[in-house]
């Protein structure tokens, strides 16, 4: 249990509101710039990468709870957001986001997990269709191409999720690269990135 307590430093706790705000603003900005992806988990991923799975999980959950104040039909997606924070945090603890190979593997795992959870939720809670634009695509696949509902929902989600998660993981990765060692070391997982950087200086100059 001492490991769990280590994650709850004051710096980590203060990171949660910022992560939530980044999530909401990323989502707003994506809407404002009329991009068709959500980009509303950048903050969760960043916090999970810096402070570990538990803080990441809380950030994801709280973001959705706050969004639900305006639209309570979103509340069930808190399950997805907490799962995402947890997965990214666990990967970060293992040092996945310090090398390019690890980042690619991390993206694959995160997309797979998010498709799994969101497909299950779409089908069992909302019956396969929601208000998001991707639902039309689900409908076309299901009705016109004769694919079973589960498969149609999966295909349409894989497309949406891949683009969304690639960006949502790469932004925090580059942000962490831009942070100074001094700042990084204040966060629970900061040491992982600093160590990777020190190792990398000899050959890559990162």
């Amino acid at each position: 249990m001492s490991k769990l307590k280590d994650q709850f430093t004051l710096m980590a706790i203060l990171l949660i509101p910022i992560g939530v705000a980044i999530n909401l603003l990323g989502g707003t900005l994506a809407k404002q710039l009329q991009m068709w992806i959500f980009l509303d988990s950048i903050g969760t991923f960043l916090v999970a990468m810096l402070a570990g799975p538990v803080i990441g999980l809380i950030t994801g959950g709280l973001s959705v709870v706050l969004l639900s104040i305006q639209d309570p039909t979103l509340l069930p997606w808190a399950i997805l957001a907490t799962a995402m924070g947890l997965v990214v945090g666990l990967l970060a603890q293992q040092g996945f986001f310090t090398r390019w190979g690890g980042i690619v593997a991390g993206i694959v795992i995160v997309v797979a997990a998010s498709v799994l959870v969101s497909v299950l939720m779409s089908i069992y809670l909302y019956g396969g269709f929601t208000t998001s634009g991707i639902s039309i695509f689900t409908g076309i696949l299901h009705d016109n191409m004769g694919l079973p509902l589960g498969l149609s929902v999966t295909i349409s989600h894989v497309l949406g999720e891949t683009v969304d998660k690639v960006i949502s993981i790469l932004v925090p990765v580059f942000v962490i690269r831009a942070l100074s060692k001094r700042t990084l070391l204040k966060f629970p997982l900061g040491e992982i990135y600093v160590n990777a950087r020190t190792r990398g200086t000899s050959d890559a100059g990162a």
Partner: protein
Amino acid sequence: MSATETIRSGNRVRDLNPATQVLGCLVLAVVALLFGLVSMAAVVVVCFVLAAAAGRFVAFVSTWAKTVLVLSLVIVALQTMFIPGEEVWWEWGPLSATGEGFRRGTLFASRIMGAATPLVLLVQLVDLRRLVLEMERRGISPKVTYVFVATVNIIPQMRDRMGVIMDAQRARGVETDANWWVRIKAFFPTIGPLIISSIVGVEEKAITLEARGFTATGPRTSLYSIQDTGVDRVLRVGAWVLLAVVVVGRVVLWLR
């Protein structure tokens, strides 16, 4: 306690203890889910009445219509169109409305409506400051309530900062309103500096909080107080009893 000030709005429903409001709305949501369309309709009516009693009818209806109602209608429409079935009502190009789809759609939509309507009501009833006070009174750590309040407060601040960054980037030639690809490219120079400056600012916040005794242990005092009246207690007991009755009733109905 005499030095503290009780937060009141003057409306009896909104001045109930936040714990009572939260429990009441959750019980309503459970009731709505347990007995199908009839209980869903009853709960929605109860929510409308409570919203009117709280003097928040207009705000409640407008939020409700924009979110819950829209999603429910979309679900019914899409299910009707896309779920194949024997009982075809009419066809229009590739689309065909079926009775099976319509029934499936109303089933999902009524679940969503039943669970979400009490939540819309809850948001209209609860005052964040009172909710936080009640949470602390019930022994929830101030760290938890701080995260809650700080999040709500930080969003407008960061939105302002995002506006400043966008203006600055536009001033140095980053386009934010052209075709799709240009807009995607504008996303990164906006979100990047926003994130980095916020993270660097975390340390300052930590020092400020430490200087004000945030991590100090021991009892705390608050400038404001909150009331837990006899009416609140009676209502909460009533809510628990109602919950027990409907759950037992549902189980009995299943077993028969």
